[in-house]
């Protein structure tokens, strides 16, 4: 379990608290810049970085045992079109990572890294003046399992590549064992899993 520092634990348990608790937002774009915003009326400096004053709100986050992939919606006011260019350039910012943490402005020297919550941007909606991000964990259903597909009747090597090895005059190959044999490369250079070959096609 993450542990807050003693200072922060004492601070959050006080009924009367100095400073303001401000949300800091870090958006890491794939192959792009890192954006830093503070849900505040002034810029906030934390961890050697400046978080620009910006207007955004974060919706509730629920997690249950129904097997659903947890998601939440974050709304950013985009009156100044600050995000527009990034949305266009980086495919709606989908695939980026959004991290947020709430810090106390009187204790900015403390380390809040244990409290940082990170989500992947899995959806983006743009209805002026707001931009809404659907945040969640990367869906396991998006990845092919198993990662590779094995078909004994299809060679996986690109024709005439190093693994294929064919250097003759023919210009095409249907990537099946007969074509490979016709090019005198079967079975040594054939890229299909021959051990899976039976009466019917088998995939693994």
């Amino acid at each position: 379990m993450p542990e807050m520092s003693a200072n922060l634990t004492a601070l959050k348990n006080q009924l009367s608290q100095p400073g303001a608790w401000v949300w800091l937002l870090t958006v890491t774009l794939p192959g792009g810049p890192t954006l830093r915003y503070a849900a505040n009326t002034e810029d906030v400096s934390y961890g050697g970085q400046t978080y620009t004053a910006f207007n955004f709100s974060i919706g509730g986050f629920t997690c249950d045992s129904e097997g659903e992939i947890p998601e939440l919606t974050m709304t950013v006011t985009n009156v100044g079109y600050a995000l527009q260019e990034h949305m266009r350039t980086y495919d709606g910012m989908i695939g980026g990572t959004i991290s947020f943490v709430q810090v106390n402005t009187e204790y900015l020297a403390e380390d809040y890294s244990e409290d940082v919550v990170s989500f992947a941007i899995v959806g983006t909606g743009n209805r002026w003046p707001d931009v809404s991000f659907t945040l969640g964990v990367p869906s396991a259903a998006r990845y092919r399992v198993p990662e590779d597909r094995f078909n004994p009747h299809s060679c996986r090597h690109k024709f005439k590549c190093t693994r294929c090895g064919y250097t003759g005059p023919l210009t095409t190959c249907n990537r099946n064992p007969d074509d490979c044999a016709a090019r005198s490369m079967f079975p040594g250079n054939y890229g299909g899993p021959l051990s899976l070959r039976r009466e019917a096609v088998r995939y693994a």
Partner: protein
Amino acid sequence: MAQPVYPTLGVNPDEDGFVREPALDPSSRTQLEDGAYLVVKTKTKIPLRWSLVYSQLSNANKETLDAFWEDDAGCGAVPIKFTDPTNSTTYFVHFAGPPRCSLEADGQSTWRVEIDLIEAIGTYT
């Protein structure tokens, strides 16, 4: 770039109806079981808002304000430099809406003009 300056009209807004107050409540309140509240602040600087009322404003001054709101202030999009007449302090503000103008029933063709301003976020000169 220097911000536009609120026009000098030669008259101050009425004392009656003049408002300068925080524009938002930045607190987050949680009621505890014993009835007490845990209150935390969520913003470090609270912008102010003003309501100004000019009664019996001349037609020329009314036109000046209308033109300033539309052109220099960009209908509220551009922060303007405003000196509060009650404390002589300068603030950078936005128009929170268009000037509301109604003709006074005094037979002098003067206007009652109401203006709402809100403090601008950011640093300006």
